[in-house]
């Protein structure tokens, strides 16, 4: 048997039945990582020894007849935005290079309790800010379907990892599309749960009212398996929902007849690549053929989603990232390189008044200098841009026009969904306006990069659930993604619909050609 070819569901079953050892499975995936990740760079840290040891322990316990967790022996890769006590947690930033938190994220703890085998931490856009995984301080991730293209972001490493069979399951996080969009560009399945469905404790915060952790897998059935292990109330997260966790895997077995899926005409405007549009329409047709009905719905404020998101998220991020100041952990600049003005006599060089040509700045105190230089050195350009944008939009005189305004539009966006879901059960459509784009294509224009999230930000702003999965390929062999969005706590329906689609099609079984 080939572990790399099995689904997570089948792997777990095979291990539990003794058909294959957890060690053999772990080794297969670790060897695969060694073999192909040089070209892809999905991983920032791989812990082979610990993974094998863990797998060996599971094998021993299985032999001794001891009870095993629901994911026993399943290799799982974890986005480097989740804290792991035994591995570095860098968020792909120089600010946290080598940082080891003294605790595990709640999701990581639940995976360990379920006896999953954590193989390593995946690459990402720095502090989860980006749509292409080109904002990593440690180098970009390459799309396994075309190494010259981006895998999407910010969970680009997790997406590429699963797409290239380096792990059957990866954990990602999604703030404006960061699970669903890279899943779409890499031909895998990615679920952003309803806000509060999965604990955020230990997820390095980007935008607290938008962030959610979710599974990235080859299939909805695999995602359902992982969700059963990671979802559920956490008293350590005040925003965590108390709702019971349904048995997602057993709820997959239901026909699609009667399912009403909405289609938003506006999605199919000029920004949408024609091959993607075609793939998406084919998916609608497939659902229809399977017994669903397709209905026109409107999300009148969806077009304001990007603007709203790019106010709410940077504002929250500017505050969440204030803790990275070189004082208690993380990168601290070496002292002494900047000039210091005398206390009370002028501070940083006045712009427009002869800013020193040599770029040497003045600071009002050694402490302020430490803050300013540590943060300037530790953060990459996109992170700095968003911190600046968020700081500006929250600042005195601008709060009402920007942040408060965005929160009002957010309510309108959420209301659009609530209204739409009165007439349909789910809303379908594209997850990304284009297939995977070449590395470097969008990096010179921040706004161009922001627009890759146009179909996904609404889900986070409204706090509802969304899943993306492959629905076709371009002529050039690039995956095309389809997204379903559902009301709060509709994960069972989202997973069921995706699973049903995946029984009727096999886009999700295709694999990129990579040197073995």
């Amino acid at each position, binding site marked *: 048997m080939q572990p790399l070819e099995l689904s997570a569901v089948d792997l777990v079953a095979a291990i539990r039945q003794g058909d294959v050892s957890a060690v053999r499975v772990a080794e297969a995936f670790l060897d695969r990582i060694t073999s192909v990740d040089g070209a892809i760079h999905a991983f920032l840290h791989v812990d082979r020894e610990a993974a094998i040891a863990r797998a060996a322990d599971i094998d021993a316990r299985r032999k001794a007849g001891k009870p095993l967790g629901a994911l026993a022996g399943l290799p799982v890769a974890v986005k480097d935005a989740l804290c792991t006590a035994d591995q570095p947690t860098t968020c792909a930033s120089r600010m946290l290079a080598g940082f080891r938190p*003294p605790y595990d994220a709640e999701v990581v703890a639940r995976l360990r309790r379920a006896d999953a085998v954590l193989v390593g931490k995946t690459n990402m856009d720095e502090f989860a800010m980006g749509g292409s995984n080109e904002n990593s301080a440690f180098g970009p991730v390459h799309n396994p379907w075309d190494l010259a293209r981006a895998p999407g972001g910010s969970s680009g490493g997790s997406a590429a990892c699963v797409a290239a069979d380096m792990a059957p399951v990866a954990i990602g996080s999604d703030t404006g599309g960061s699970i669903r969009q890279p899943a779409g560009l890499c031909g895998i399945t990615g679920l952003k749960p309803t*806000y509060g469905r999965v604990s955020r404790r230990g997820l390095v915060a980007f935008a607290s009212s938008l962030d959610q952790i979710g599974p990235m897998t080859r299939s909805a059935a695999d995602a359902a398996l992982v969700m059963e292990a990671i979802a559920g109330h956490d008293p350590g997260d005040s925003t965590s*929902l108390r709702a019971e966790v349904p048995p997602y895997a057993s709820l997959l077995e239901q026909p699609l007849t009667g399912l009403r899926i909405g289609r938003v005409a506006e999605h199919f405007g000029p920004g949408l690549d024609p091959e993607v549009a075609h793939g998406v329409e084919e998916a609608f047709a497939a659902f229809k053929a399977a017994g669903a009905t397709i209905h026109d719905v409107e999300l009148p404020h969806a077009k304001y989603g990007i603007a709203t998101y790019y106010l709410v998220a940077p504002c929250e991020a500017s505050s969440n990232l204030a803790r990275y100041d070189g004082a208690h952990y993380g990168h601290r600049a070496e002292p002494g390189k900047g000039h210091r003005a005398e206390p009370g006599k002028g*501070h940083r060089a006045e712009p427009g008044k002869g800013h020193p*040509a040599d770029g040497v700045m003045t600071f009002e105190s050694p402490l302020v200098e430490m803050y300013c230089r540590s943060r300037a050195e530790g953060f990459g350009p996109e992170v700095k841009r968003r911190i600046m944008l968020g700081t500006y939009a929250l600042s005195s005189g601008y709060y009402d026009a920007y942040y408060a305004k965005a929160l009002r539009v957010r*309510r309108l966006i959420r209301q659009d969904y609530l209204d739409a879901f009165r007439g349909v059960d789910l809303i379908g459509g594209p997850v990304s306006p284009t297939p995977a784009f070449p590395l470097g294509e969008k990096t010179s224009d921040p706004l161009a990069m922001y627009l890759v999230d146009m179909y996904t930000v609404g889900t986070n702003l409204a706090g509802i659930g969304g899943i993306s999965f492959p629905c076709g390929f371009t002529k050039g062999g690039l995956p095309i993604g389809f997204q379903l969005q559902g009301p709060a706590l509709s994960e069972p329906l989202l997973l069921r619909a995706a699973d049903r689609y995946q029984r009727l099609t096999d886009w999700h079984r295709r694999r990129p050609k990579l040197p073995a």
Partner: protein
Amino acid sequence: MALSRQDVAKVGLLARLALSGDDLDRMTGELSKIVGFVSQLEELDTADVVPLAHPLDTQNVFRDDEPAASLTTAEALQSAPRHDGACFLVPAVLGESGAA
């Protein structure tokens, strides 16, 4: 909606980010463009709309006043750039408090 170089320098100080002259120039251009873009929200009349800060309707989440394990001092300081075994060390802060 253009930001001036001075606006950006002020924001840079608020955000504790050292910005070189080149940084300021570039950032001024980029931020002006982005702020111009997000200003499209002005098209919408939201006078009667209540801001939505939380997507949840959850309220009243509490914990009991029960002690939980703290970190050891060593764990607390394990990632500190500078410490003396008991405290974090930062450049001298003289005679002023943080908040006004």
